[in-house]
């Protein structure tokens, strides 16, 4: 439960905290464009824990630079994307993932908004249907015509 709040809440706080830090994409550090593209792709899936509203692809924080280096080295050693992601989650937890995984702990986070919409629409539907079936006299009568005021005519 804590983690759910956590994820929701960080978004807001970090918008405020990090709004001054506009990101410029870091320059590629190796001359292999395919490798750099893959490093960037994985980096956009990973949260920079120092400036939590940024991915490590966007962030210039020291840690983000180090983590990108780590991703690059792991790829150069022939590890695949999933292995890199697993490596990061083993150290920093699911929180490092920009898109949290769907599991029991995060279910509310993922389906909460949809459930709310469904419940809202359902309630609206039931209420409207019930009303449409009521007899006319169940409603408050409309205002009667104002009584004739002799002074006005």
């Amino acid at each position, binding site marked *: 439960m*804590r983690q759910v*709040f*956590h994820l929701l*809440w960080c978004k807001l706080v970090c918008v405020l905290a990090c709004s001054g830090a506009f990101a410029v994409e870091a320059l590629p550090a190796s001359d292999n464009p395919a490798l750099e593209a893959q490093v960037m792709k994985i980096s956009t899936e990973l949260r920079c824990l*120092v400036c*939590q509203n940024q991915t490590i692809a966007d962030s210039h924080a020291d840690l983000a630079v*180090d983590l990108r280096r780590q991703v690059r080295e792991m790829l150069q050693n022939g590890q695949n994307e999933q292995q890199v992601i697993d490596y990061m989650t*083993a*150290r920093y*937890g699911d929180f490092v993932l920009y898109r949290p995984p769907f599991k029991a702990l995060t279910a509310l986070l993922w389906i909460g908004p949809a459930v709310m919409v469904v419940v809202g629409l359902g309630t609206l539907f039931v209420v409207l249907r019930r009303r449409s079936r009521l007899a006319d006299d169940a409603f408050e009568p409309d205002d009667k015509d104002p009584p004739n005021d002799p002074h006005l005519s």
Partner: protein
Amino acid sequence: MKHVRYLVPMGILLVLLYFLRAGLSLNPKEVPSPLIGKPAPAFSLPRLDQPEQRISRDDLRGQVWMLNVWASWCVACRQEHPLLVQYAKQSKVPIYGLNYKDERAAGMKWLADFGNPYTASISDRDGRVGIDFGVYGVPETFVIDREGVIRYKQIGPLTPEVLRDTIEPLLKQLNS
């Protein structure tokens, strides 16, 4: 009786308010660490004061110890430091320092200036061991048990309250 149903929206509102209130009381900077209860990652790093000597994780096995991640560039570390120095004097637990992404000279100067609470500091020049420990906000402090399992992680500076209420009871339990 009929009016009871008007309490339903009120109830829903109260639930929402509760959630908002709970959200406000959380600190987003504190990311729950997946490393608690897991073996400390292996490392072998040179000592800060004697770089020709190395300390590895397995050298420290068999004792309860604390790992404090610090750096001379870290402002919050300076705030925490007097407490560590004072705590180290009570010698309740060996404190090892992980000098994170720091220059050796700057680290040595810091210890000379502000006191050295560490049994030894090891030098993580490029921050790789830091990554293995999931470090993202210095200072951080880990309590590691005899079997080398991480039992507690403090993100940010230690406080007298944390030492008294969380770490001391944990140390007692681990040492018993």
